[in-house]
């Protein structure tokens, strides 16, 4: 199957799918998409772009992995999706550079992700529920999520 490699931007720059907003303590990501699948992909791209910097654009995928998440609601699903990728990235020294959302409901997500061998240049301690939101923003969807750095 093919995985679309998205456009990237360094933190602070507005890209096609995400941007970083000012936050008193930490890093606040805003992501958007035409539908929820694209929104979840863009949020993951934003986080990876923060962790691995602009060099991420030159990485080549080494393997495909499956991610399956279940959560109580859509907001928790977004936090758990990003937390899962953060855990894999930091414990296995991998960057995730392509995201194919196969299934997405209010409480379940199944995705195929492309991994590349890389070491992060920034640290994220955790993905938080702080100021977390997912909302309809015509013509698509928008989310904000704060990372504890």
């Amino acid at each position: 199957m093919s995985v679309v490699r998205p456009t990237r931007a360094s933190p602070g720059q507005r890209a096609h799918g995400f941007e970083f907003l000012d936050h008193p303590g930490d890093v606040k990501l805003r992501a958007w998409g035409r539908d929820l699948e694209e929104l979840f992909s863009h949020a993951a791209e934003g986080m990876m772009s923060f962790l691995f910097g602009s060099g991420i654009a030159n990485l080549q995928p080494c393997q495909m992995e499956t991610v399956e998440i279940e959560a109580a609601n859509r907001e928790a699903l977004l936090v758990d999706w990003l937390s899962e990728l953060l855990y894999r990235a930091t414990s296995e020294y991998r960057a995730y550079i392509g995201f194919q959302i196969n299934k997405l409901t209010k409480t379940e997500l199944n995705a195929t992700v492309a991994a590349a061998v890389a070491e992060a240049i920034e640290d994220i301690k955790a993905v938080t529920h702080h100021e977390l939101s997912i909302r309809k923003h015509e013509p698509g969807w928008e989310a904000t999520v704060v990372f504890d750095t």
Partner: protein
Amino acid sequence: MRPIGLADLRQITPYAWEIPRSFRNDMRVTARLYASRPMVEHLVHERALEQLVNTATLPGVQEPALAMPDIHQGYGFPIGGVVATRAADGVISPGGVGYDINCGVRLLASGARYPEVREHVARLATQIQRDVPTGIGHGGRITLDDRAMDEVLNTGLGWAIKAGYASEADADSIEERGCFVGASADAVPERARKRGRDQLGTLGSGNHFLEVQRVERIHDRARAEAFGLFEDQVTVLVHTGSRGLGHQTCTEYVRLMDQVMAEYGITLADRELACAPFVSPEGQAYFRAMASAANFAWCNRQLITHAVRDVWQRVLGRDEDLAVVYDVSHNIAKLEEHRGVPCVVHRKGATRAFGPGSDGIPERYRRTGQPVFVPGSMGTASYVLAGTDVAMSETFGSSCHGAGRRLSRQKAKQTIDYNRLRQELDDMGIEVRAASAKGLIEEAPAAYKDVEEVVNVMAETGVTAKVARLVPVAIVKG
């Protein structure tokens, strides 16, 4: 929720302010803030005060919910917050400890005066940067197998002593002797173990740092002597925590608490306050996991201590072991008795500051009160304080933990010029070894509140007494 204005705060002393229970229906206790008037005027525009009020709504919270003068916005709980809940029927909250479990500060004291080592400081800084892994990416010099990880998590300093990284004297100079009663490796999520397996002995990034300092001023001679400090002495301050192991532990328990809260009939103003009754299976499991992660953090600071001692001897050719003055945690929940009630004291960005005569502090500090370390921002002074009787009666034996962030990281990057900052630190005679320009800018002094103002508030209220002022001569950061 209506915003908090200056009129909502009642000034009870020159440096203490309260938001009464009547401010919001869901408050169970008063919210109290220690701050100067200019600090309060600045704070009313920030979300941190609303977060303080939110902590006053937690089940079992004891009067009052507290904030120290270095308060700033956190997740759920404000950073600089102290919240005690009744152990019998109150809650424990991972958010009240934070993602970096047992982030803390250790002070090492040498026998050297600054003029004796001045010409070697640059080499010291370079060698420390080489020997203490900083930043992120691949981990430290050791990778723990399952058995060693169990031992670190269960016994903390016990493991470090056995492995030859620590002495009994070191353990005597650490909160809980570096081994938290109640720690149990089986409560630590597998993923947390994996994330931390190669991170022991690493400083990490963000606001973590290691500083070589000079004791610039002694404020309290008797206490300084008891702490082994003298004017012009060279000290080393280590600020780091439990690294990925603690972050993942908190992440997983926040998720668990979020799932079970409804079963316990708990509703909250903010999901990051997610909690469970302390006596519940989930509350107890978190407490055991947090205690284990705290043990990991103490071992982390111990391995860094071991590396610094080695550099000290190699570079200076001095046959001395840097002594641990004390090691304080500023992100932790402790089971303590206050006013005759067993409590879970959540300190998030706050330091235990037990006064004279308290149990749980080293024998040699029983007459002085325990040492409290308050690092300033990079390039500015740090303070050694001492806990007092006022802390025991007013603040659940707690004080401030640092300067407190003033500018967001993004604003810091927009307003601070890297070259000028380097020049300023250079002009102050400070050797800087930083992994990245960005990391340096984000932690620039201008991004933080004035540490002097913070410790002055604590001294004026009598919560902690000033003992010594330390200034940096070399900074190593991730």
